[in-house]
C-alpha cells in the first residue's frame, strides 16, 4: 500500500520535473533523452551478463566496437543499411561472444572476481589493439540521410533520429522481460542468475546457460554496435568509454534491475544536459555522472543500514 502510494508520488514528481524542464529548455530534455537512450541500450546487455553470470565484463565496449567494424565492412561492401545488417551482425557477435565465453571467461568463473576483471581487461586491450592493427586508428563513418532527420516546433529545430536509441532500449527491456519471464529458457537463465546451485538441482545446465546468456548479450550489444555506426564514427577505442559508463549505470540501478538502467540513464542524460545548458558549467557536465553514482550508492548504504 505504502509502496504503491510512493510509486505514484514518484511518477508525479518525475512528470512535474520533466514538464518544468520542457518549458524551461526543451532541448535539455530532448538531448538528455537521446543520450539516455544510447547509454541505456549499451548498458542493458552488460546488465544482463552482470545479473545472471555475475561477471563485470571490462571488454563490453570492445564487443560493441567489434560489431561496429563488422557492420561497417558489411555495409560498405554490400550497401546494406545497418538496420538490416544488425541481424547477421548479431548472429556473428553471438557466436563470437559464445566462443570468448568458452575459451576464457568460463575458465575464470570459479576464480575470484578480480581475476575475472583483469581477464576481461586483457580481452579489452587485445581486441582494441587487434582492431588498431587491422583498421588503424583512422576513424570510419558511413553516412545516411535519415540520421539528420529533423523536426521543427516553433523556432526550435532538433534532430529526432537519436530517439531511435530510446526505442531500442525499450525494445530490449520489453524483449528481455518477455524472454526471462515467458520462455522456459529465459526462466532458466533467471533461475541460474538467482541461484546457480538451485538451478543445477532441477536439471538446468548452468554452464550452458551462462554461455547462452553471454551469446545473447553479445548479440544485443552487436545489434547496438550495428546501429551505433549510423550516428557515430568508429575507431578502435570507440567502445571503451562506454564500458565504465555502463558499469556505473548498472550499479546505480542495482544489479538485476534492467528497467532501472533506463531510469538511471535518463536521470544521467537529463542532468548532464542541464549543466551543459549553462555556459559556465558546460565543462563540468561529466561530473554529474560520478556525483550521482556516489550519492546513489551512499544513499543506498545508509538506507540499508537503517533497514
Amino acid at each position, binding site marked *: 500500500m505504502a509502496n504503491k502510494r510512493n510509486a505514484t508520488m514518484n511518477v508525479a514528481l518525475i512528470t512535474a520535473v520533466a514538464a518544468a524542464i520542457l518549458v524551461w529548455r526543451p*532541448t*535539455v530534455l*530532448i*538531448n538528455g533523452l*537521446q*543520450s539516455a537512450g544510447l547509454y541505456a541500450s549499451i548498458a542493458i546487455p552488460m546488465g544482463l551478463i552482470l545479473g545472471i553470470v555475475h561477471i563485470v565484463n571490462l571488454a563490453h565496449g570492445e564487443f560493441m566496437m567489434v560489431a561496429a567494424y563488422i557492420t561497417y565492412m558489411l555495409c*560498405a561492401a554490400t550497401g546494406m543499411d545497418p538496420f538490416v545488417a544488425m541481424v547477421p551482425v548479431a548472429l556473428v557477435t553471438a557466436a563470437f561472444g559464445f566462443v570468448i565465453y568458452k575459451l576464457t571467461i568460463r575458465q575464470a568463473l570459479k576464480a575470484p572476481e578480480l581475476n575475472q576483471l583483469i581477464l576481461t581487461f586483457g580481452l579489452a586491450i587485445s581486441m582494441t*589493439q587487434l582492431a*588498431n592493427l587491422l583498421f*588503424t*586508428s*583512422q*576513424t*570510419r*563513418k*558511413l*553516412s545516411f*540521410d535519415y*540520421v*539528420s*532527420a*529533423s523536426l*521543427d516546433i516553433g523556432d526550435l*529545430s*532538433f*534532430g*529526432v*533520429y537519436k530517439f531511435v536509441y530510446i526505442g531500442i532500449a525499450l525494445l530490449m527491456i520489453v524483449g528481455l522481460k518477455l524472454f526471462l519471464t515467458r520462455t522456459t529458457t529465459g526462466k532458466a537463465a533467471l533461475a541460474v542468475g538467482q541461484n546457480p546451485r538451485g538451478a543445477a538441482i532441477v536439471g538446468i545446465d548452468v554452464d550452458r546457460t551462462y554461455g547462452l546468456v553471454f551469446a545473447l548479450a553479445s548479440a544485443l550489444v552487436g545489434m547496438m554496435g550495428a546501429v551505433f555506426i549510423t*550516428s*557515430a*564514427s568508429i*575507431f578502435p*577505442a*570507440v567502445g*571503451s*568509454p*562506454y564500458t565504465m*559508463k555502463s558499469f556505473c549505470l548498472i550499479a546505480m540501478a542495482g544489479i538485476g534491475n534492467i528497467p532501472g538502467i533506463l531510469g538511471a540513464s535518463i536521470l544521467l542524460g537529463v542532468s548532464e*544536459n542541464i549543466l*551543459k*545548458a549553462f*555556459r559556465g558549467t*558546460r*565543462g563540468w*557536465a*561529466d561530473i554529474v555522472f560520478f556525483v550521482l553514482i556516489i550519492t546513489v550508492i551512499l544513499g543506498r548504504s545508509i538506507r540499508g543500514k537503517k533497514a
Partner: protein
Amino acid sequence: MKKASAILAILALSVPAFAQSGNIKIGGTWPLGDITGKQGSMAAQQAVDEINAAGGILGRQLELIVIDDELKADKGAAAIEKLVTVDNVDVLMGGMASGVALGQIPAMKKYGKIVISTGAASYKVEEALGADANWYFHLHPWDYNQGASYAQGWDEIQKKYPAIKIKKLFLAYEEGAFGKSSFDQTKILFGEGGRYVVDGAPFKSAAQGGGDYGSMLETAKAFKPDLFLWAGYDADALPMLEQAKAMKFNPGVYLGAPPGWPIGFQNSKLANNVMLYGMWAPSINDISAASKKFYDGFVAKYKAEPATYFAPLSYSAVYVYADAVKLAGTTETNAVIKALEATKYASPLGQTITFTPAKIIKHQGIKNQKILQWQNGRQEVIWPFESATAKPVYPFPKWK
C-alpha cells in the same frame, strides 16, 4: 628485485645496435598506435629508403630506429634515453603530441642531440625548451603560428574575394588540451583590434566518449556566426555535420580543424564545401613535384594513401637532415646545426622549408598553415594563394 636487475641488464644488452658502424642513425619516436605516428614513421622510412637507394649520404647508409611513444610522456622519455644511450643515434626525430614532447624535453636537453620535431604545437613546449635549445628544430607550426596564419588567411581571402564576408566567428573546441589551446589562440589572434567578433563553446569529442554536440550547436546557432570553426578529432567530423543539419544550423563557412579526416568522408553528401585547416592534401601533387614524388612513393610502398600531413612532414624531416649532413660533410652536431640553419628544402608540403626564429626558439620551420576545402571529393588548397589549387566555394550550401 634481483630478478628485476638481471632482466634489466639483459634487456640493456639484448638490444644491440644491430647496425654496422658507419651507418648514419636516425632515432624516431612516434605514437605508432595512432594513424599520425604510424604513417609518420612509415613516411620517414620511405625517405630513408629513397636516400639509401640513391647511394646514401657521404657514402654512408641511413638507418631509422623507431620506438613507439604510446602517447605517454614517460614512454616517450624512455625512448629518447634508449635511442641516445643504447643505439647512439646521430639525430632524433618525430613527435606528435605536446604532452609527450614535454616529457621528452628534459632528456633531450641532457644530451643536446639534434632534434627535428614533427609535432608538438603547444606554446608550453616552446616555453619548456627555452631560448638556449639551439639543437631543436621544430618543423610543425606552433599553435600561435597557426592562429596567426589563419587570421592572416581570412584577411587575405576576404580582400581577394569581396563576396566572402566574415565578421562573427564561432569556435567549437574539444574539451582537451588541443581544443582549449586552439580556442585561446583564436580568441587572441582573431579578436585583436576588433576585426572579428569571436565566441566559442567546448564539446566532448567523440574520441573521448562524447559525440553529442546538441548544446554546443545550439549556442553556436544562437550566435549566428559567419564562420563556424571546430577544433576536434576526425571522429567528430561527420556526426557534427549531421547534427548541425538536423538542427538546421547553416553557417556561411563550415570549417573543421581536426588532425585527420575519417576514411570516406568525401562520400558523405554533407562533406562537399566543408573547409579545413591543414598542411597537406593529395591535391598538392598538382603543384609540387616533391609532393607527387612523396605521394607516389608512399602509395607504391605501402599500398595505402597518406591520410595525414604527419606523413609528408616526417618524410621532410629525413630529407632536411640528410641535406644538412651532405652540406656539412659530417654528422658532427655543431656542423650539422650550422648546415640545418641554411636549410632550403622544397618540401612535399608545397612550400620550401627554412628555419627562422620563433617567439622563443631559434629554429622554427613551417609557420603557416593552409586553408583547404573539400570540393567534389578532394581537399583543394585555397590559401595561401601561391599554393592554391582551387578557388573557394562560398557560402557553404544550405541544407536540403
